[in-house]
């Protein structure tokens, strides 16, 4: 398989992962707000605002990234990188404080623990980084 095709498949897969994560969170906003609040990083009103905003940003950026829409592709790419960086900070913080909480990354569907979610975010960030480097070279 040619490299550009592999990159396109990776881009589509990562984008769809974000879209599905956003959709699953939207299925129960209140629960996602609780999951955010359980990280003990923000007051309730901010946790709720994050829970309302984040899924839509994931859907929008993930969708644009997966589709490869050239007008917004780079912006979507950077957005996803920033999101992953934010997830890593939040998850790393929860991990170091030994919080026994649900990640909430994929709504209630996954029930992922913090260490596992941290590893998954690292993988996603790695793939996004590789795609970024490939884009810069291209």
């Amino acid at each position, binding site marked *: 398989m040619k490299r550009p095709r592999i990159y396109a498949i990776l881009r589509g897969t990562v984008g769809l992962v974000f879209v599905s994560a956003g959709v699953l969170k*939207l299925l129960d*906003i*209140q*629960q996602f*707000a*609780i*999951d955010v*609040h*359980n990280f*003990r990083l923000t*007051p*309730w*009103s901010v946790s*709720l605002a994050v829970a*309302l*905003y984040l899924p*839509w*940003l994931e*859907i*929008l*950026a993930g969708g*644009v990234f997966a589709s490869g829409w050239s*007008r*917004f*592709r*780079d*912006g*979507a*790419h*950077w*957005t996803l990188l*920033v999101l992953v960086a934010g997830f890593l900070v939040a998850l790393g913080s929860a991990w170091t*404080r*030994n*919080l*026994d*909480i*649900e990640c909430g990354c994929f709504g209630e569907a996954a029930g992922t623990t913090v260490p596992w979610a941290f590893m998954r975010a690292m993988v996603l960030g790695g793939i996004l980084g590789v795609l970024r480097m490939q884009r810069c070279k291209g």
Partner: protein
Amino acid sequence: MRGCSSAFRQALCLWGAALIPAVLSAFFFQVEWKRDASRVSLTEVESWKTPILWIDARSREKYDAGHWPGAIHLNADEWDALVGDFLAAWSPSVNVVVYCDSRACGASEEVAARIRKDFGHEAVFVLEGGWESLKEERK
């Protein structure tokens, strides 16, 4: 769309565009902005004159190993099986206080939200510190 040329501007456009459905969904889902008021400390609970119904939202094993005197076992995983016990003990005049393991766990938040939603009972509170704080109190 002409302004959305550089990656930074593209990102700003996406972040701005995501605000629109986010604001709309805030109205659609009728979220509880003031929910923090429902978190209470043990000291606050002890100062209440209102009857209290304690809810233990931990697992069956942990509940059986030890729970607050009079606490009813109710959690999201076994909701259907346990909700009967809750209803038998509940009355509209009580303050419901839910606890789980510790400050970090989210089970009590989930149970409290469900009681509010399913039974329309507003006086539902989550105990800060959970079972850990209750154990300290018992010492």
